[in-house]
């Protein structure tokens, strides 16, 4: 078998989807940082869906649903993305090989569980992971730039097939995507403004109490009600929030630090010091989310001086500050 290795730039990222998009763009000569990708796609949000259970615990997310980052950024940059799904597994693998032999970099949606290079404690049934394949070695193993890892990795064809075609919620169905070469001239200023406005608007939440600031307050109420369940159950509920916020590739504080980094970069790009001040404020908000995570874990450790009320109150502080952040972002985007 002939080995293929298409040239890439692999930069470690915090999050899989924004990381793949940034690495794909950078590999094709279009310099854009991961936080810039994240910010431009207006992916920052908060979601608490008590009726959707993952591993028996409610769904909590700090960003927009999978695939929204890639589609929204590429639309803003005017880059064409071609994606394909497959009914037949072998056709899906053949299409990947064909694209690689044409010199393309291929984005894949996969399950985390079947990727053998993931550490044991991080393997779970989650089907919306993203990675980029850039070649194949002589043994027939795929060369992979998985953005959440420090270095590039390899994966056998068998495992990659299993990961691409794992069934279940958010099943990838072999989804692969390739990006056309990006145009070098894009007016970022206008796009930055638009995306900040969109993020600010989403922060107040929709009619239902599950999104944005409303969602945060709703979750705080739910934490108060944990008084009625066993300490064990309350602990599992709280540690699940902490995992979604910190463990699942968010760059810390549920993407708040990545967003602050985007605002910082945007302020330098637009030479706008008021945006830098908002970035600093967002950092403070992120620090408060970390404080909340700490309180939640202290409760789990059964520290007597931390009550559920303390935990929910530290979350309410986040909601209050996000309300202020929202008005700062909104008034900037209107200026």
């Amino acid at each position: 078998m002939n080995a293929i290795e298409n040239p890439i730039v692999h930069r470690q990222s915090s999050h899989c989807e924004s990381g793949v998009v940034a690495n794909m763009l950078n590999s094709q000569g279009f310099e854009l940082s991961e936080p810039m990708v994240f910010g431009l796609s207006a992916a920052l949000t908060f979601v608490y869906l008590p009726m959707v259970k993952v591993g028996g615990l409610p769904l909590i997310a700090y960003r927009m649903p999978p695939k929204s980052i890639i589609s929204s950024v590429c639309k803003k940059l005017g880059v064409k993305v071609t994606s394909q799904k497959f009914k037949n597994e072998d056709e899906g693998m053949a299409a990947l090989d064909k694209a690689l032999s044409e010199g393309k970099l291929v984005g894949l949606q996969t399950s985390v569980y079947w990727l053998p290079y993931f550490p044991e404690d991080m393997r779970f049934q989650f089907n919306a992971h993203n990675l980029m394949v850039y070649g194949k070695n002589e043994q027939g193993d795929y060369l992979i730039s998985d953005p959440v890892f420090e270095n590039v990795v390899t994966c056998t064809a068998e495992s990659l097939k299993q990961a691409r075609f794992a069934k279940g919620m958010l099943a990838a169905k072999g989804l692969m995507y390739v990006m056309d070469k990006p145009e070098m001239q894009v007016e970022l200023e206008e796009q930055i403004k638009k995306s900040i406005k969109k993020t600010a608007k989403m922060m107040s939440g929709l009619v239902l109490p599950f999104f944005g600031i409303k969602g945060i307050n709703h979750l705080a109420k739910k934490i108060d009600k944990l008084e009625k369940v066993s300490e064990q159950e309350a602990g599992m509920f709280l540690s699940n929030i902490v995992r979604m916020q910190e463990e699942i590739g968010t760059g810390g504080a549920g993407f708040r630090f990545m967003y602050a980094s985007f605002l910082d970069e945007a302020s330098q790009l637009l030479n706008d010091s008021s945006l830098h001040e908002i970035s600093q404020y967002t950092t403070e908000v992120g620090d408060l989310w970390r404080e909340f995570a700490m309180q939640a874990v202290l409760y789990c450790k059964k520290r007597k001086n931390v009550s559920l009320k303390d935990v929910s109150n530290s979350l309410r502080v986040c909601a209050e500050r996000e309300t202020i952040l929202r008005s700062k972002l909104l008034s900037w985007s209107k200026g």
Partner: protein
Amino acid sequence: MKKDEVPQDGCKTYSGHKKLIYAVGEEGHYEGVKSSGWEVEGFATEMAVSALDSQLEQAKAEYIKGDVSPIAYYIPLFRFDLMSLAHATGFFQWQIKRHMTCDIFNKLSDKKLQKYSDVFNISLTELKKPEIES
């Protein structure tokens, strides 16, 4: 969070890996910083992992005693729960619950069992008779 405040707690759940965190550097601007883990996050992960482990231990003991079918053992082994397995196999949760009893399991057709084999990525033989590591 400042760059020098990025936790480096060497979490064992990271298995020696490092993650990228965004933090404020000396000049007041953001940069990516590698972190070997935050104790707070590591504690939450370990709680989840140990809950799964104890589920698996329980299922293993019940299977060995003959109280439940291999499905009950494989669910925690492959880190599924009733809902995710229902999505993956196309069975309803109540059907899976029935398949977790020995009587019903033993009567299942190979066609139905194959759905489980595919999702767990194991052979029918393994599905019917798990090799349990003690």
